[in-house]
């Protein structure tokens, strides 16, 4: 406590330094006078007495100094001095300061933004109490890993596991929330009753589902804080009221705490419903329908490995008990630590890429600091000559760098916050809200501070040490401004610029490859014609209370209306839309008489669609053989199917396919046609077997009407909507266009191209600044040499060539290093690249050519200035 008090007083003293000095001077004077008095009384002469007194004191000035050091905090005082001096220096050179701060802000800002994304997307733990004990359960199958379990399998695991104290299940869906006259799509999770208790999350208002409750009569819902605000104006009386979801009313049980948006990163959940209110107990007993994702909480003290051993046994027991369904399946556990370890790889790749940019920025600023240091050699030499210590000098220079970095970090944070605001615009198109939970928090600030400090070490330390080694004599004599002095400094600066150019070539090569990959992806055949003006109307008659017969009639009626509209080329019905977020996933289990399936399985899951006769014609899928569906393929007629080319080749290679039978979910169907493969879920999927059934033979209560417009899809959409409204205004319709679907499908590739491309541009931009700095600096330093050359008869052309030559040599060497580095680095990208090899020579040539071109431009300005030097003047100023 006394120590703290002393520290506090010493800090306070720093703010009025003069006050204490005067007081102590008076005290010292009185001390000396009293001592002198005593001396005189002992018989000494006044002069001698005073001399003795001063000797015994140990010197006036020494005492004062010792006292002053005790009174304040000397190191803090010097720091404050350094900061003030540094600020003065920075203010005196606003151009230098602005460029350096801007460069650092770009680097630090980019790093901060990417760190925030990485944290939200990859690193942040489960939004739950003690997230370390949570672990995802997945199924391992011969085909690979699967996320989804059936509800009975989940229940068996939950009941039998003793190493996990609780296991929850959830399944993600989309519903229409109706508030007043408006409808909006919301994401709902159907959850096991213990969902919230396993997570350890309680409602901020009302209650969550309790693990025991069986809400049989009245379906209850828990809604998220954001929806509560968005749709209900944070109505405090909402709990206990009814809200309308799709076709039912639900009682609001509670509001989840702010920030809790379910367990899926990037796809925030709006509300939660207990499974029992949505599914009958028969449906929940269906072991074949796998739609639940499962998370378990480890008992305290139980390791993931121990739990895995137990789950192994339980999984094998399931496979034995239900061989028809769970054969060859087992259960695996992904602990939080393992998840983080898996997340580290993409995080490191992201951070390395953006870290390279910061490195370039630092190299640039180092160049600027070096240039400034060079101009200050005289000042530094003077201070050294006057007795300043080298360490003190390094500290002063580092303080200046630290100031630059702090300013850079502050602006960088602003930049990152700006990017954050832009984030929603960068999200892929979607009907329901998506987006990561991005926000500034302590860890982000800590990261930014660390990035700034690290940059100080990178760009500030070397110039500071270099400068403090200034040789007194030569600097004061004005040497080093002549021809070829300070070779060491040159090599170092040149190395920095070489590194920059090499790095920007690496980044440019990467962006070139990603862009070429995007172009290739865009040229891939999709299995339908994306050039057509296709409009998709998603129809949900079930919301208006239709049963399946009425729905079928409704669909037909709407299709007839559409076909009759002028400007409509084709109209067709389908169950699932290709390449949309609801595009695939549902499968039927297919067995094929006469064909042996891999691993002795009885049947294989195959994805399917239900379409009507006009479908292939409307979207432009090519029929390879056989026929399309006709109106004759009705519920009364024999079951038929059209299969994809890959399915035909997989099961009947080189054989006649038409007329063969398959058994899909127990129903025998005859193959009547084969069509080309279409992309089901993503552009880059490998073709897989796919089946089409006649829409009439596979009724459903939802459907999408596809309309191919001859022209002007906008006007047609409006007319079509009013036609549908005229049939029944209560049926919700949402509209998508093929353009929207394409945007969605190419989003990943486009973002990768945009991100890496932006980095590449940033890199070459910074590289240009760096090169410009070096060349301009050389021109300054060599002005006398250039003057002499011109006086001796060199032409402007020769000088131009001399300076440009320096820039281009650097650029060429840098580009060479960059190409070699790219050869190694691009292998990291190979999983992201389609249709272009990571060593694509054209891209490599292009990126180095661009780098050289930019280098030429960057050297041009100082070269012109060098060529316009007046020899007389440059010789005179020295």
């Amino acid at each position, binding site marked *: 406590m006394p120590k703290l008090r*002393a520290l506090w007083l010493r800090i306070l003293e720093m703010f009025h330094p003069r006050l204490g000095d005067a007081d102590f001077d*008076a*005290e010292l004077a*009185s001390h000396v006078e009293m001592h002198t008095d005593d001396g005189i009384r002992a018989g000494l002469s006044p002069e001698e007495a005073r001399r003795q007194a001063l000797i015994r*004191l140990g010197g006036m000035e020494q*005492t004062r100094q*010792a006292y002053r050091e005790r009174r304040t905090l000397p190191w803090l005082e010097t720091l404050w001095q350094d900061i003030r001096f540094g600020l003065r220096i920075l203010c005196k050179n606003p151009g230098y300061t602005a460029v350096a701060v801007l460069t650092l802000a770009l680097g630090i800002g980019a790093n901060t933004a990417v760190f925030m994304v990485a944290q939200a997307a990859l690193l942040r733990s489960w939004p739950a109490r003690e997230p370390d004990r949570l672990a995802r359960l997945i199924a391992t199958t011969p085909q690979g890993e699967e996320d989804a379990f059936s509800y009975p399998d989940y229940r068996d695991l939950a009941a039998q596991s003793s190493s996990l104290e609780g296991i929850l299940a959830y399944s993600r869906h989309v519903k229409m929330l109706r508030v007043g006259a408006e409808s909006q799509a919301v994401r709902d999770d159907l959850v096991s009753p213990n969902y919230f208790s396993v997570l350890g999350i309680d409602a901020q208002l009302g209650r969550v589902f309790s693990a025991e409750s069986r809400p049989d009569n009245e379906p209850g819902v828990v809604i998220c804080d954001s929806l509560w605000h968005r749709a209900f104006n944070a109505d405090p009386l909402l709990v206990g009221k009814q809200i309308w979801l799709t076709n039912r009313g639900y009682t609001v049980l509670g509001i989840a705490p702010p920030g809790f948006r379910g367990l899926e990163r990037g796809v925030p959940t709006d509300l939660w419903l207990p499974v029992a209110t949505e599914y009958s107990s028969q449906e929940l007993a269906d072991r074949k329908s796998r739609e639940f994702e499962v998370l378990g909480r480890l008992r305290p003290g139980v390791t993931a490995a121990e739990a895995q051993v137990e789950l192994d046994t339980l999984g094998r027991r399931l496979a034995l008990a239900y061989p028809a369904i769970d054969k060859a399946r087992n259960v695996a556990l992904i602990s939080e630590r393992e998840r983080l370890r898996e997340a580290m790889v993409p995080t490191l790749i992201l951070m390395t890429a953006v870290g390279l940019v910061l490195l370039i920025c630092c190299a640039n600023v180092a160049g600027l600091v070096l240039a400034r240091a060079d101009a200050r050699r005289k000042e530094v030499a003077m201070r050294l000559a006057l007795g300043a210590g080298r360490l003190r000098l390094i500290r002063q220079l580092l303080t200046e760098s630290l100031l630059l970095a702090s300013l850079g970090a502050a602006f960088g944070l602003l930049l990152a916050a700006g990017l954050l605001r832009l984030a929603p615009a960068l999200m892929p198109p979607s009907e329901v809200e998506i987006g990561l939970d991005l926000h500034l928090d302590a860890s982000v600030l800590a990261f930014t501070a660390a990035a700034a400090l690290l940059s100080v070490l990178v760009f500030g330390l070397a110039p500071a040490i270099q400068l403090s080694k200034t040789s007194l004599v030569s600097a004061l004599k004005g040497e080093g401004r002549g021809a070829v002095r300070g070779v060491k400094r040159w090599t170092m600066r040149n190395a920095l610029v070489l590194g920059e150019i090499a790095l920007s070539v690496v980044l440019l090569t990467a962006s070139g490859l990603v862009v070429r990959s995007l172009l290739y992806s865009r040229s891939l055949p999709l299995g339908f014609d994306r050039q057509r003006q296709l409009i998709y109307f998603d129809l949900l008659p079930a919301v208006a209370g239709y049963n399946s017969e009425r729905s079928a009639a409704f669909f037909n009626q709407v299709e007839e209306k559409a076909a009759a509209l002028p400007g409509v080329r084709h109209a067709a019905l389908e169950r699932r839309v290709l390449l949309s977020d609801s595009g695939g996933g549902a499968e039927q289990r297919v067995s094929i008489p006469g064909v042996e399936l891999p691993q002795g399985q009885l049947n294989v899951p195959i994805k399917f669609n239900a379409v009507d006769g006009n479908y292939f014609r409307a979207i432009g899928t090519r029929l390879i053989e056989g026929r399309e569906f006709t109106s004759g393929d009705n519920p009364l007629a024999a079951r038929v199917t059209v299969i994809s080319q890959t399915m035909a080749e997989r099961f009947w290679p080189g054989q006649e396919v038409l007329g063969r039978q398959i058994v899909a979910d127990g129903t025998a169907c005859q193959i009547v046609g084969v069509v080309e493969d279409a992309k089901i879920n993503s552009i880059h999927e490998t073709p897989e077997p796919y089946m089409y059934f006649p829409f009439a033979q596979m009724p459903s209560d939802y459907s999408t009407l596809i309309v191919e417009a001859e022209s002007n899809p906008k006007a047609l959409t409006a007319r079509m909507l009013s036609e549908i409204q005229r049939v029944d205004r209560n049926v919700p319709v949402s509209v998508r266009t093929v353009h929207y679907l394409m945007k969605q499908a190419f989003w990943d590739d486009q973002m990768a191209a945009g991100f890496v491309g932006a980095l590449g541009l940033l890199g070459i931009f910074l590289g240009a600044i760096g090169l410009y700095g070096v060349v301009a600096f050389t021109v300054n330093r060599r002005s006398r040499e250039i003057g002499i050359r011109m006086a001796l008869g060199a032409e402007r052309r020769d000088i131009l060539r001399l300076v440009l030559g320096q820039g281009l040599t650097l650029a060429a060497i840098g580009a060479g290093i960059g190409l070699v580095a790219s050869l190694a680095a691009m292998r990291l990208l190979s999983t992201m690249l389609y249709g272009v090899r990571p060593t694509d020579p054209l891209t490599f040539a292009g990126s180095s050519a661009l780098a050289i071109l930019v280098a030429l431009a960057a050297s041009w300005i100082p070269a012109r200035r060098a060529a316009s030097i007046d020899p007389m003047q440059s010789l005179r100023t020295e």
Partner: protein
Amino acid sequence: MGEKTDVWQGTLALMALRTLESMGPLHGYGLARRIEQISGDRLQLNYGTLYPALLKLEQEGFIRSSWGLSDNNRRAKYYELTKAGERQVKKAAAEWEQTTAILARFLTPAEEA
């Protein structure tokens, strides 16, 4: 005794506190003379080193100072113990005694062998 202030600081502070405790308020010069006298003139300290030590004690709240008049009608700054200072003298003295007692055991020849 030289200017070994690192050894000095702790002991000098204790001497000053102890002196102020027994003598009451003193100015810096008086305190320095007093310490010399009590040591039987075996301590020859640079008077200047006393002032940073006094300042430290003041910053730590063990003593306080105020300007007053000396016996010879000179203005002088007087130091006196605070309540915290009184407690500190006892604490520091006890600690010091313990330290010297332990050290004494090392310096005197062992008796039981």
